[in-house]
C-alpha cells in the first residue's frame, strides 16, 4: 500500500470520527442551553464546548462574543473552521476520493452520500427544535460509515490505518472533554454531590454517549472518580483511553506483521496501554488529573506522529 494511501485512510477516519464527536459536543451544548439557568452560565458552557472541540481560539479569531447561534454555526457549518462538521466531512471525502481504490464501494457510498446530503442542508432550516434531529443524523451517518467499513473492508493495511485514525481521534476527543471539566471531577472539590456537579458529570458522560452505560457498570449515582475511571481506564467503555489503545495496539501489531518489523509507534502505543492497564485511579488523582490528561494528549500526538513517520505518510 502507498504511504499516501495509508495517510489518506488514516485522516479520512480521523475526520469522520471528529465530525461525530463535534456533533455530540454540540448536542450537549444545545441541551445545556435549553436547561434553565442553574448558575453555571450558558456562555461558559458554550465556551467549554468550544475548548473541548479544540476550536476556542479559532472561534475567538472570528467572533468577539459567544452566542448560541454563532457557536452552533461555527461548529457545524463554518468552512473557515477546519474542525466544523462541514469541514470534517469535506476533508474526509477528499481523502476518500484520493484513495477510492482502497475503499469498498459501500464505504465510499456511505461517505459520499453523507457529503452530498449535508451540502443541501441550510443552517437556517435548523431552527425551532430541528437541531437534535440533524445532529442525530450526523451520528447515524458516521455509524453507517463505520458499519460499512467493519462489514466490508478486508482486514489488511487499509483496515488498520482506518482503525488507527478513528481511535487516535477518539482518544484525543475523550481526553479533551475530560480536561475541560477536570476540575469538577477532582475529589477535593468542596461542593461534591451538589446538583450542579451532578449535572456537569452527566454532561461529560453525555458527550461520549455514556450516561446510561455508566449506570450499568457502576450501578450507582454519578461519582466523579468513577466518571474519570470509566472514561480513562475501563477497557469495556468504547470511548475510554484504554479501549482506544487496545485497538491502536492491535492495528499497529497487524501492521508490524505485514511489513515484517516492529515500529516505533507500536513500542510507544504498547507502553501507553501498559500504563493504562496498571495505573490505579488514585494515583492519577494524586499526581493531578489535569497533568495526567495533558501528558496523555502529548503521548497520543506523539503516537500519531510516529505512525506518519513509520509508514511513510509523506
Amino acid at each position, binding site marked *: *500500500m*502507498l*504511504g*499516501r*494511501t*495509508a495517510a489518506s485512510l488514516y485522516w479520512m477516519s480521523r475526520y469522520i470520527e471528529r465530525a461525530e464527536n463535534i456533533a455530540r459536543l454540540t448536542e450537549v451544548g444545545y441541551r445545556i442551553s435549553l436547561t434553565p439557568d442553574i448558575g453555571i452560565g450558558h456562555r461558559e458552557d458554550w465556551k467549554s464546548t468550544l475548548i473541548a472541540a479544540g476550536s476556542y481560539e479559532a472561534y475567538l479569531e472570528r467572533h468577539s462574543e459567544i452566542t448560541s447561534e454563532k457557536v452552533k454555526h461555527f461548529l457545524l457549518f463554518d468552512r473557515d473552521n477546519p474542525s466544523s462538521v462541514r469541514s470534517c466531512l469535506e476533508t474526509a471525502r*477528499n481523502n476518500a*476520493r*484520493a*484513495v*477510492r*481504490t482502497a475503499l469498498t*464501494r459501500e464505504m*465510499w*457510498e456511505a461517505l*459520499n*452520500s453523507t457529503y*452530498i446530503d449535508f451540502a443541501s442542508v441550510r443552517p437556517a432550516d435548523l431552527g425551532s427544535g430541528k437541531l437534535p434531529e440533524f445532529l442525530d443524523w450526523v451520528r447515524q451517518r458516521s455509524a453507517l460509515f463505520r458499519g460499512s467499513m467493519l462489514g466490508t473492508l478486508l482486514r489488511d*493495511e487499509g483496515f488498520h490505518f482506518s482503525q488507527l485514525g478513528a481511535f487516535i481521534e477518539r482518544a484525543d476527543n475523550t481526553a479533551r472533554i475530560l480536561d475541560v471539566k477536570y476540575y469538577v471531577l477532582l475529589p477535593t472539590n468542596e461542593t461534591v454531590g451538589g446538583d450542579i456537579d451532578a449535572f456537569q458529570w452527566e454532561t461529560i458522560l453525555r458527550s461520549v454517549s455514556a450516561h446510561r452505560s455508566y449506570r450499568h457498570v457502576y450501578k450507582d449515582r454519578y461519582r466523579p472518580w468513577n466518571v474519570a475511571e470509566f472514561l480513562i481506564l475501563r477497557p469495556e467503555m468504547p470511548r475510554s483511553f484504554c479501549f482506544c489503545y487496545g485497538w491502536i495496539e492491535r492495528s499497529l501489531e497487524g*501492521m508490524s506483521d*505485514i*511489513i*515484517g518489523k516492529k515500529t516505533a509507534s507500536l513500542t510507544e502505543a504498547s507502553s501507553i496501554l501498559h500504563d493504562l492497564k496498571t495505573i490505579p485511579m488514585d494515583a492519577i488523582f494524586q499526581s493531578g488529573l489535569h497533568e495526567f490528561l495533558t501528558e496523555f494528549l502529548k503521548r497520543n500526538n506523539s503516537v500519531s506522529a510516529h505512525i506518519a513517520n513509520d*509508514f*511513510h505518510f509523506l
Partner: protein
Amino acid sequence: MVALADGMMNTQASAKNKGSMKEAPAFFDEMRSADGSIRPAYQKIADWMGRQSRGGMARKQEEAEAIFRRLGITFAVYGDNASNERLIPFDLIPRVIAAQEWRFLERGIEQRVRALNLFLYDIYHRQEIIRAGRIPADLVVGNEAFLPQMMGFDPPGKIYSHIVGTDIVRTGENAFFVLEDNLRTPSGVSYMLEDREAMMHLFPELFAAHRVAPVERYPEMLRQTLESVAPPCCKSDPTLAVLTPGIYNSAYFEHSFLADQMGVELVQGSDLFIENGTLYMRTVSGKERIDVLYRRVDDSYLDPLAFRSDSTLGVPGLFDLYRAGGVTIVNAPGTGIADDKAVYAYVPDIIEFYTGEKPILSNVPTYRCSIADECHHVLDNLSHLVVKEVHGSGGYGMLIGPHATKAQLAEFEKKIKAKPSNYIAQPTLNLSTCPSNVGAGSAPRHVDLRPFVLVGDKIRITPGGLTRVALKKGSLVVNSSQGGGTKDTWVLED
C-alpha cells in the same frame, strides 16, 4: 406511450435554420429510415420505447442519476466554479450498432491504429515518409507536438499509442468518418463501463431480449495490454500503476476507476521516486518497484528534468529511465504528433504508405489554414465551417460557423489571420441522430462514437465504445465539457 416530442425536427440543424427548411440537411436517423420505418437493429428498442410511460422513464432517469451521483462519477468543468463537480448527463435510450456495421468499423479502426503506430516509429527513427515526400518535413519536425527527445528510441514492442480512442461520426447509411484519433491519453472508457452497468441495472429485460456484445472485459484487456509491454529488464510479473495528476483533475474518477478495476495502485508524482535505475512507489513498508506506468498526465508534466521544469505532477528522471529501458510509459511520450490536427489531413496517405492498403475509414475533409489557398477558402466560408485549433482538445477554442455570432466570426477571422498554421477547418458534419430521452418524450439527438482500442501483443477493440450525445436540441457539440451526455452503446451479435 412516449411521444416523439419533436420527431419531425430531425431535418433541422437548429432553430436558426427554421426559415430555410428546404436547404436544411437531412440528418441520418440511426433508428428510422427515410420512409419512417424502423431499422432492424432498433426494432426491439422501438417496441420497448413504445411501451414506456413518460412518468416511468422520468423515474428511471432519476434513478440513474442517483446511481451515478452516489458512485461519484462526476467530472470537473474548467472555469465553472459554481458547481465544479458535475454529472455527465446519461441518456436512457441505448445506441445500437448492427453486427455487420461493427465489423466494418473494427477493420477500419484496426488498420488506422496500426498505421499510426508505424508512422510514430518511423518519424522517431528514419523518417522514411518524409524522405518519400508524402508529408512535409516541417509539419512533423517543426510541430510543437513532435518530441525530439524520442528520436532513435525503441519503445517495447515498437508501440507508441497503446490506448486509443478513435472518434467516429456517421452521416449516412454507409458513411462513417474518423473525426479525431486521440492517441495521447483518451478518456471516457469509465463512462462506457458504468453506462453499461447502469443500463443492466435499470433495464435488465432489454438485455434479455437482445444479444449485446459485452464490454466488461475492458479492464482485464487493459491489464493484459500493459503487461505485454513491460520493459525487457522485467523478468517477473510486471507491476503496473496508473499515474494521475490528482483528485482535482477532470478525469480523476476514471483514473481511480481503472486502477481499481485492474487491481493496481493509483499513484501521483509525489508517490514515486527513482533509485538505482528503478522506478519505485513509496509504500507503507518502504518502496515497491513499478515496471509499467499507465500515465494520465500530459507529456510536458511527466518529468521536470526533461520537460516542463515547473511540473510537480511527474517524476524527476522518469524520461531518462524510460529511454534506458527501466520502465515503460504508456502511452509513449510524443504520440501527440500523430493525432495533431494538422497531421490529421495526411492520415489517409499515412495508411497507404505503411500498409499499402486503401483506408477503410474516411477522413473528414479538412482545410489546412497553413496552406494559403485553403486558408482563403476557410476565411471566405467561415460561417459554414467548423474551425479548430491544431493543438486544442475537448471542444475548447473551437468555432462552429453556422452557430456563431458575427462577433465570434470576426474574432476567429482575426485569430486565423494572425497565425494560420494554428488552425484547420472542416465542413459542419451532419452528425447522425439517435432517439434520446428528453423531458417531453423521446426525440432524435446528434451523436458520435468513441470506440476504445488497446494495442499491445495484439490489438483489442472493445465492441461499441462511448456514444456521446448532444442533448440540446439541434446542437452538434457532443463534448461533455460543452454539456453533452452519454449513452450505452450496443453492438448486436449475429
